[in-house]
């Protein structure tokens, strides 16, 4: 129900912003991407370094990445519902995603990866920062929610994994697209990692006045919730831009929802309001066929 509602909102505003978004993307692409690590990677080495420095903080729920832990209360249920909807699974079991292979691109310390595996999925989680992967592996040894053998970490990039012809039922990339050098190419990589008829889920921060005040000014500068300089507002992607980039990569929008901070619960929750954080599901055209 929630998904359907969100979807309606998205399609309504989609057309209006279409032209604007295309123009903006074109100008971004022209800026050039001299900082790319390798010709085929959308990874920005400066961003990787930024995260690598703070790798030991990933699992401190009261620290830098606390908000990401609390974001799980919105993004994990969205992915659970979107995947169950897409594959006709019963979401009301403890581990409904047991039949699905999932790749998480840009997993950081594994905050979301463990949640996905806890919901039953067979998860491959990748990140370009070795330090983060090390932390994620260490934490996995001590975690209490992931069934044995359901989660493995690899220090690599999406492009590299795609070139190995690895394909998954669900491709997840959360809070990553705003950090990459070439978002359109990043979306194409995610599409490539997805099996025909599969599902791609992305979450990110919208580029609005609200997100500027909340994510940059409040979160980074005033509350110190996110490390200063963690985000570059100009790199934020609007839902329309994301939709267009994904369409160009062969992915059709199926659902979108906002994720809003709830003060009394001290966590994020799904909402209609996509003006700051949002999450969207896209399906890849094609015949699903039999599993991997």
């Amino acid at each position, binding site marked *: 129900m929630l998904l359907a509602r969100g979807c309606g909102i998205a399609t309504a505003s989609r057309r209006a912003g279409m032209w604007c978004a295309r123009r903006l993307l074109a100008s971004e692409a022209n800026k050039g991407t001299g900082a790319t690590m390798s010709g085929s990677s959308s990874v920005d080495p400066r961003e990787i370094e930024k995260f690598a420095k703070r790798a030991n903080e990933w699992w401190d729920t009261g620290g830098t990445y606390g908000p990401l832990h609390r974001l799980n209360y919105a993004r994990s249920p969205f992915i659970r519902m979107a995947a169950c909807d897409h594959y006709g699974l019963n979401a009301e079991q403890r581990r409904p995603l047991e039949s699905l292979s999932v790749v998480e691109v840009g997993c950081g310390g594994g905050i979301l990866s463990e949640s996905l595996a*806890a919901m039953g999925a067979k998860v491959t989680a990748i990140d370009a920062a070795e330090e983060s992967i090390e932390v994620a592996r260490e934490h996995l040894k001590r975690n209490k929610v992931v069934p044995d053998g359901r989660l493995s970490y690899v220090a690599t990039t999406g492009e590299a994994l795609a070139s190995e012809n690895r394909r998954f039922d669900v491709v997840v990339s959360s809070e990553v697209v705003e950090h990459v050098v070439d978002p359109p190419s990043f979306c194409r990589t995610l599409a490539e990692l997805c099996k025909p008829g599969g599902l791609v889920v992305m979450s990110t921060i919208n580029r609005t006045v609200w997100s500027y005040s909340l994510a940059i000014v409040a979160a980074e500068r005033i509350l110190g919730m996110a490390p200063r300089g963690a985000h570059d507002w100009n790199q934020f992607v609007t839902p329309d831009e994301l939709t267009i980039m994904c369409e160009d990569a062969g992915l059709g929008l199926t659902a979108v929802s906002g994720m809003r901070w709830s003060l009394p619960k001290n966590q994020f929750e799904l909402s209609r309001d996509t003006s700051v954080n949002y999450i969207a599901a896209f399906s890849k055209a094609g015949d699903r066929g039999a599993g991997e």
Partner: protein
Amino acid sequence: MSMRRALSMRGAAMASCRGFLGAGPSATSSTTQQDFDVVVFGGGMIGSALACLLKQSPLTSELKVAVVDRNAPSSPSSSIADLPQVPDIRVSTLTPSTLALIDRVGADWAIHPTRSASFHDMQVWDQTASRKHMRFSGSGEGPLGRVVENEVIKSALQRRAQELGCEYASGGVKEVLAPRPRVGITREAGDDDDLCDRPSVVFEDGRVLSAPLLVGADGSESIVAKSAGIRYEGRAYGQRAVTCTVDVSRPFATAFQRFLPTGPIALLPVRGGRGNIVWSTTPEHARRLESLGARDFAAEAMEALTVEGGPVPSSSSSSRGGGGWESALASRASALLGLRGGASPPAAFEDPPEVVSVAGGRQRSFPLASKHALTYCQRGVVLVGDAAHRIHPLAGQGVNIGFGDCELLVTTIQEALWSGQDFSANLTLEKYAAERRNKNGAMIRSLDAVRALYQSESPYVEAARSFGMDLINGFGPLKQVFVGFASSNAAAADIRSP
């Protein structure tokens, strides 16, 4: 530092940190260690209710749950033995929301009309001769509440929990091993929230039960709270409650509560047309009351419940010769308690039935105290029921707020499972802890305010006390104290005498 030591002390019991996912007795361990998802420590009313709720609710029903108690539970296969003719002296007043919960988990056996007594009204009045009182009535079909013996509630819930697949482990417990709170601001590398902090319970016979989440439901002397380093705030009231079952002159369906300068006395209906008395008073008086014979005690209780001076016309502040200062004091006290005054349709005063004699066993007394845990959770450990809060019995809310704890805890765990989160992590448990501690804290403060008003030795409060029912007449938080914050189907009517 101390963290480290605490961890190493946990020794063999903690040898297996992971592996609960493999569920079932772990064959690898030399001791007989069993791994569960949740271990509920204390299989009383609250612990057993929690176990039922966990096994009955979506998502949590898939968790492997064990309940630990020093006493063996009622067996589900045992034929339902006839209850003793005279009800036990330990009874609880259950609010509609508690009744709904018991019904929902399938333990409605306990609240069947033959095993419980309903009351449709609650009448509260003070020691003055003025018959100022207030009366609460259930609106609609349902009663305001039911009075059930603790043993009956407990055994129904224990039997149901076992039917639902909870494992009961009973016997002497040697120790409870819980992660200690972190001390100071020092952090050692790797010493993060999810460090291998798997609490466990060690029985005297060597059995070990362990789970990522240990629930302390072991009552007001909780050893779970103690081993987790959870502290309490609170006070001893310096009072005792004398309680017993009594024969009365007629069946009744009102919960009576009268405030005396020494403390409140309550007369509740129990099954079989009898009554139950809970009389809070000074320790000396309690000792004397305990020593009385069945008829003498009944006579004293009757006296305590009887309106002094018989029917008296309505008293106003002027008839009491009160000047402006008295009403000023009363309004100050009102403001203090956050009450609004207000006229409502009067309801007639009901004389309590005559107390004839103590029935069944002798009257016994319990010490009264108020105790509130400073936090309800601590790294893999969470408290529910009396382990988290012990309150004055005057409003009969004790066990009801415990049932409320269980409901929110289960919802919180469900939400964590739904989001693929660790349900034993502080990130999850803190939400339960903060919300419940707030709610229960408000109840405790209201109770303390009522009690202070009636038991202060100060002459000023003494004067305000004669306006007691005017104060209580406000539909403020005090209404909630008496009817229970959860019983939305209760309508209150406040009254002045005719």
